[in-house]
């Protein structure tokens, strides 16, 4: 049961990734692209967690944790750049 669920979930997340990339390339605005990147980070977390479940290991949990903790700071920096130009002031 879990195997089928895993496969379906992975397929769905993969689809989400493709859609992210589409938005990222299409744009049209820089904000769209930043948003797409941020969503891609979220999807990467999901993919890594699913991988852990599939391989029955806990080795990659930290990678997911790190994306969660740090990924959004990249987004913040990009957003601040778009809004204010100067990121650190």
């Amino acid at each position, binding site marked *: 049961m879990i195997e089928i669920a895993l496969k379906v979930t*992975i397929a769905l997340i993969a689809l989400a990734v493709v859609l992210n990339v589409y938005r990222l*390339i299409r744009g049209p605005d820089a904000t769209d692209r930043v948003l797409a990147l941020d969503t891609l980070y979220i999807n990467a977390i999901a993919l890594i967690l699913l991988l852990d479940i599939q391989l029955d290991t806990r080795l990659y949990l930290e*990678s997911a944790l790190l994306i969660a903790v740090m990924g959004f700071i990249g987004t913040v920096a990009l957003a601040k750049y*778009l*809004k204010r130009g100067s990121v650190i002031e």
Partner: protein
Amino acid sequence: MSLALVVMLPFMGAVIAPQFAQAGRTAIAIASSVPSLVALMTLFPYWERLAGGNAVIQHVEWLPQIGLSLSFRLDGLALLFALLILVIGILIILYARYYLKKHENVGKFYSLLLLFQGAMLGIVLSNNLLLMLVFWELTSVVSFLLISFWNHKQDARRGARMALAITGGGGLALMAGVLLIGQIVGSYELEVVLAAGDQIRAHALYPITLALILVGAFTKSAQFPFHFWLPHAMQAPTPVSAYLHSATMVKAGIFLMARLYPALAGTEQWFYMVSFTGMITLLIGAYVAMFKHDLKGLLAHSTVSHLGLITLLFGMGTKLAAVAAVFHVVNHATFKASLFMAAGIIDHETGTRDMRRINGLWRYMPHTATLAMVAAASMAGVPLLNGFISKEMFFAEALELNLPGIWAYLPPLVATLAGIFAVAYSARFIHDVFFNGQPKNLPVFPPHEPPRYMKIPVEILVFACLAVGMFPAFSVGPLLFIAASATLGGEVPDYTLAVAHGFNLPLLMSFAAFSGGLVMYSQRQRFFDFHERFKEIDEKAVFESVVTWVGNLSERVTNKLENGSLQRYALLLFLTAFTVTLWPLTELGFSIGSNELSPVDYPSALGALVLIGAAIGTVVMHRQRLTSLILLSVVGLLVAVAFATFSAPDLALTQLSVEVVTIILLVLSLFYLPAQTPVETTAFTRWRDVGIALAAGIGMTLVTLALLTRPFSSISEFFLENSKPGGGGTNVVNVILVDFRGFDTLGEITVLAIAALGIYSMMKYTKLQAPATDRLGNPWSKDPHPTMLMQISRPLLPLALMVSVFIFLRGHNLPGGGFIAGLITAVALISQYIASGVDWSEQRVKTPYQIVVALGVAIATLTGVGSYAFGYPFLTSWFTYASLPVIGKFELATAMIFDLGVYLTVVGATLLALTSLGKLSDPSTKVSASHNEGGV
């Protein structure tokens, strides 16, 4: 180790003596002569043993792996040279006391002089050829500093540079020669090398070895065609010329020939190379000396000529000639040093060295004149003076030389001709300077005798000339005998040191030289006119133009390779890699190995497709800087996920943290850059680069494929096995970083620290104008620190720090470690800078990041040094297990302290770089609205 002490004494003096500079010139002169006096006393007790024909060797291992040892040797030859260096050294120190003016930097002068003395003693007392080489190079460097002592004069600087280039270059040749000897003999110890003469001479590499060593000796001893540096080195203060360019440094090359005489001499190659070089030098030096109007110029060329004479004697290859050579070393040092000192006195008292202006000084300084005339007479080879005796021996040897056929006349002819020149220039020195009418508009008039003590060194040396000249057997007989026996390596031929050997052919040659020389001097105007017809080559100009040419050439080559364009570097790098790899790859036949390929799963394939797409997108969109940056982040993220998928969690963690820092860094710089990159390339270069990129990429894929599909064993097995027992941790990557390869890591964090400090110091005073609007021309938002962002980022800080501590602590056993933890902390702190601003953050983080960086490197280094305290080599790690209630059993390792150093360096360096970039914008151009501190 009393011999090592003798060598070390002047070096210690070089440190201590300058402390007396404030107390006046007399005090520092006395302090500077102490090392020489103590050294002389140390050497004195050895006389008995040396007189018995034994050598004293004192040996301490230093780097036995490369054959370098602290091994010193005192035999007759070394003693003779050491006495010259020490005794003349004391006299020079006394002389310089009166020569230097009060306002000059006497501390520097005496310090350098003592350094030089130590280096010279090192050369003559070394028993290890490599050790000798070290001292040899030291004399080149110190002589450079001494010649350019008056470094405000351009001529002095140029002369010094020339001397350094020539002698330093010769030093390189000598090094090659010494290494070859070491290869042939298997040892650098002199006693082994000297005993292996036959083996060296029979070896196939003998000619090249000999040539290299002779180039070293010839450059140092100013032999043709390297002789030109010596006259230009006369820009040095006169005590330096008297010491370096008459008695010591230029004799180092002679010493080398004498020292290696048993090992290298006695072959045809030796004979032709050494004797002909000597002969040419002898003639050229003596000839040019006649036409020099500069007092020191005359002496310098005369020195070149006498050095040629000694070289010629060594080249002749007979034992008697070698004895005469050693003898002439002593004689030349005494009369030439005293002549230089006399020239210095004259320069000092008249303000010029031009012999066309200095005339008739006899009336003004009879005492100095007498001394100088005796010394000059010795230089000319007048009987009853030491120069005469060795010159007679030289004439006799020149007659003995049996060259085939008509060539047999060459050596006696050259010898007599050089003798004529020598008499002529000596006569000029005496007659022009002390007689020949009245002085002509001297800068200082009237000249008078120098201070009493300034003449004492000259008197002592002139006395030595007389003593040796009249009672040779009594005064230098024993010393010469042991020196000759050490040079020849045993047997000394029968020779008698006597004032006269009766009426024979050499005496006749002397007569010829005298009458010829005097005639030549009386007819000098004709010779001057004859000489004037030839355009004189200015060696300095030639040398400078050669140096400039070489400099320009290397600059052009460098500019071709390193033109500041990253594209160019990448192009060269990839082309080289492609070319180098192509050949072995074609040999492999582009085949895939025997290992089975792993099955493709759809998520991975999709990831790969997205990765490729994002990479291509980055390239295609590269003119839209922001878009390509976002696409680049996608690449980074997917690479991190790929690392995770293919079982490299450490890499995944590192890649993710680096990724975030990269985005912040690039966004920070994007602010100051135009949003669009202008087109700077042609379509052709772009497609060429596409081709190269494709070739390199496909090549890399093929290499990886070929490698991974073949069974191969790697070093990983070793690390996997030893990680736990050897380093105490199960995370192999981390154990390698902080333990097995800790030294590497230490180097890397040091580089990181240097780079961060470099960024900091470059950016500190740089202010850039911030763009007034965003890339679409819209005004910037007026809110620098949005409340929402602030409120969310603050609680995140402790959370992120906790993750960082967690990653740090588990690093030794599970994925993580100081580097990743450092990046997490840095990113967490940077988020506060972004959200709440620099002022807010710096109020709370009081320690400057420069200190954090320094602290990190210091902790890591001290961890390494700490292992010395327990008697282990640098960076040996230690670990144990401890257990605490609640937490349970855990590991304690010194590697963790080291990792803490890594952590601090990474935190400090990242923050220093990012905040430096953040502070770039000129505050006056910034859009500053109400400083919103938001409901804190």
